[in-house]
């Protein structure tokens, strides 16, 4: 049985190579705020005046600066997560697929529970932060759970051999 929507095994390693640096950078970025905005990712746009509210601006066009550090980090992190999570194992047999599905279910439950707690206990700006994190947490939970299960099994079967 062929699974259609998984990447080949070799992408798993690429996934880890992308994921680890981007995860570390994203974590640092989200903890420190925008201290680490990379200057070369700042672009300046000419923006047309949107409404008369801004008419104290004497220019016809106002200049608008946007830094793309968070966008780049988000894209890198997501690509790393997807490749790590959804690349085939070396031997992707039916039971591994079963474990994959179970882990995915577990990850979605976990994430929903966290969001539930956040809805009840967290308000305002902080809630938006939690929502931002929850764009990535389902995949993070899945990767942790799935790899933990595989690791646990590997360890067990080595013990049987000994």
């Amino acid at each position: 049985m062929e699974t259609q929507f998984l990447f080949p095994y070799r992408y798993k390693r690429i996934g880890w190579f992308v994921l680890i640096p981007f995860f570390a950078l994203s974590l640092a970025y989200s903890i420190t705020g925008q201290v680490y905005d990379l200057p070369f990712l700042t672009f300046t746009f000419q923006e047309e005046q949107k409404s008369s509210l801004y008419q104290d601006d004497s220019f016809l066009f106002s200049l608008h600066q946007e830094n793309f550090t968070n966008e780049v980090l988000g894209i890198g992190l997501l690509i790393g997560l997807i490749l790590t999570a959804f690349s085939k194992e070396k031997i992707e047999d039916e039971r591994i697929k079963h474990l994959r599905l179970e882990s995915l279910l577990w990850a979605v439950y976990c994430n929903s529970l966290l969001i539930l707690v956040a809805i009840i206990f967290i308000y305002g700006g902080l809630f938006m932060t939690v929502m931002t994190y929850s764009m990535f947490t389902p995949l993070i939970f899945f990767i942790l759970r799935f790899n933990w299960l595989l690791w646990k099994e590997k360890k067990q079967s080595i013990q049987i051999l000994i």
Partner: protein
Amino acid sequence: MMKNTIRIERAIKNITQAELADLVKVSRQTINAIESNKYIPSAVLALKIAKVFEKKVEDIFSLEEKDWQ
């Protein structure tokens, strides 16, 4: 849960879990999980395993009372 005699059949044929895994193209952990009744193989995998041992599926895998509940 459905039980099986893979461990005995392996002993008769004198092959290891790893060798059987290679023959039916699954991981060794999967064979181990099936032997210890932690995982029920698909029909295809059960047929493949039976083929390796040159037996009928029913001779290797059998239902238990619990499977009917």
